[in-house]
């Protein structure tokens, strides 16, 4: 069912000219949203977002956003503070559900499956769409337990040795194994900030997600730790789709293949990263990346 639906839709998207879709989308919304320029849609996407609006109470924080997330890509979200990057990111694994008074409308699909569907359980959804937060937030437990927690609650392992394998593999992927292998039983909160962030990444990838959402993962880190995490992102995108929010345009340029620019709740422009940074099509994007504001 799902796959059928997916092919039908992606087929339609693929055949229809981009402009047509865009105008259709715009006319459907009540609020006047700015049109997204560039190419927000891709072939065979991992996730699709259509007409996404987010309200905090009466206040609208995200305004009619349409975007696709491709497979095995790193997509960067940039924009001035308060423009709704985090809010949008949290829509993708329904973390906004946990916020009192936050309402999300629109259609978000993961591999063609409507994540807001009544039959969709958020628990496996969040296992498939993992998240790494701006501030490192390891559990106040041992390093091992931090990484092992996800596999345990999702029942991914049969016995202890399997669990140990997963933990080791995840820590290795997150580039923390060398530093942590001798202190697996020490509290994760005892690590340095950068190590903690990598621990959080290891924790997220331990349940083999399909998408990893990263909200400013390096904002609290020094350049060396940042470099390590960027390396890690580059490696991870072989297996996962990664959505990363960042305030550093250099970082966006270094790690991402595509970049999306948000402005006051609108998605202004999406495109190949080098194109956005060298040849922005929208005035606002240009203003932002040239440092005129934001």
């Amino acid at each position, binding site marked *: 069912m799902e796959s059928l639906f997916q092919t039908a839709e992606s087929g339609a998207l693929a055949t229809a000219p981009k402009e047509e879709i865009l105008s259709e989308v715009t006319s459907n919304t009540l609020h006047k949203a700015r049109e997204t320029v560039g190419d927000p849609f891709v072939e065979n996407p991992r996730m699709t977002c259509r007409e996404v609006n987010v309200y905090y109470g009466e206040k609208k924080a995200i305004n009619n956003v349409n975007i696709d997330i491709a497979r095995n890509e790193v997509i960067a979200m940039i924009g001035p503070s308060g423009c709704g990057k985090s809010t949008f990111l949290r829509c993708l694994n329904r973390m906004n559900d946990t916020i009192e008074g936050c309402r999300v409308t629109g259609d978000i699909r993961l591999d063609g499956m409507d994540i807001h569907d009544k039959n969709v359980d958020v628990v496996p959804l969040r296992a498939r769409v993992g998240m790494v937060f701006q501030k490192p937030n*390891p559990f*106040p437990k041992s390093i091992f337990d931090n990484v092992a927690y996800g596999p345990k609650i999702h029942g991914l392992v049969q016995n202890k040795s399997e669990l140990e394998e997963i933990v080791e593999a995840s820590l290795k992927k997150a580039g923390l194994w060398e530093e942590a292998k001798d202190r697996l039983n020490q509290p994760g909160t005892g690590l340095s900030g950068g190590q903690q962030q990598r621990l959080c990444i290891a924790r997220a990838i331990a349940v083999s997600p399909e998408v990893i959402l990263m909200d400013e993962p390096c904002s609290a880190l020094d350049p060396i730790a940042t470099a390590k995490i960027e390396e890690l992102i580059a490696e991870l995108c072989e297996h996962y789709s990664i959505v990363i929010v960042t305030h550093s345009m250099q970082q966006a340029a270094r790690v991402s293949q595509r970049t999306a620019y948000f402005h006051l709740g609108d998605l202004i422009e999406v495109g190949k990263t080098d194109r956005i940074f060298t040849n922005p099509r929208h005035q606002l994007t240009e203003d932002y990346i040239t440092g005129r504001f934001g």
Partner: protein
Amino acid sequence: MDQPATNPTIDKMNRGLKRRYRAERRFRICGATAVFTALCFLFLLFFSIVSSGYKAFQKTSIQINVFFDPAEFTNENLATANFPGLIKASMSAMFPEVTSRSDKKDLYYLISPGASFQLINLVKDNPALIGQTQQIWVSANDDVDMLLKGNIDRTRPESERRINDKQLAWLDTLAGERKIKKTFNTTFFTRGDSREPELAGIWGATCGSFYTLLITLTLSFPIGIAAAVYLEEFAPKNRWTDIIEVNINNLAAVPSIVYGLLGLAVFINFFGMPRSTPLVGGLILTLMTLPVIIIASRASLKSVPPSIREAALGIGASKMQMVAHHVLPLALPGMLTGTIIGMARALGESAPLLMVGMVAFIVDIPQGFTDPATVLPVQIYLWSDSPERAFMEKTSAAIMVLLVFLLLMNAVAIFLRKRFEIKW
């Protein structure tokens, strides 16, 4: 910037600086005075209690030679033998010169009426004693005890003493023969209440408090925590939960006697539970401590940082798993502290128990939840209201026991907090 010495901002700041330091110093002095005053009062309290109560931990005994006359033990039931007679006989043997009836009465008065119970137990344990003569230390009467502890002034005129001149002389004789001694008062720690101060003990009330608090703890801890978790983590935030919250906060401030009235109406009159039992007392104290526990638990749940919740939800923990695996362990020290403070309050409570008949004279040590029982603060109240002078030191001693329990509970609270506290 060029001439930092004449920077006008710094000048302005310097002018205010002195005033700021003065204000700080004033505040520090006020604070220190407050703490000092509080400590003084605390010390005064402890001093007055300890100084008037420490003597209760000793008791006076008199040694007598008892001949277990076989002629007295004709009945099958050994307890029916004339034990007071045996004691009187041995006292008379010690002071053969005492002959008149009233003098004999005065002489026998020196020995506690509880001495015969002591002999009953001796004979019950070892019937072979019958026919033998034994040297036995028995409790002295409370007035003798008071005299030896210096609470009765022997220089006063005879009419103003409860020990008359003759009795004084006999006691001096006994003391000369080393037949009076003061020992550690085990009775006080092993017996139930009694109307004879020298026989009265705190153990009955301690057991009553134990059973009562056991019920309170087993009910109020799980219920309180479940309620707090539900309200804090699961309940929708709407008018109803607001009303519930306001009500819980109000309940915490309701005078405790109201809970007693409620308990009387519900548990005794409606459910027909037995009066004066730890069961009913415990239920009432449960009602009383629940709001305290709920409020403390909610506060400690609130203090768990949201980042931990997000982390758990972010890797796909269900809400229940998030609460059980991450939030509860972090909130537990706070919850335990709240619970123990609530329990300590319940331990010291007597007003609500008045309504359900726990303010009662109970001699037998309660053996379970449905035996009539009283509790420590009630025992203190009852003793403080007793006419016998010797109960005054018992009252203070019981307060000391209660304080020790309170201190222990608070120490446990601190220990648990330290033990379970998770450092970040």
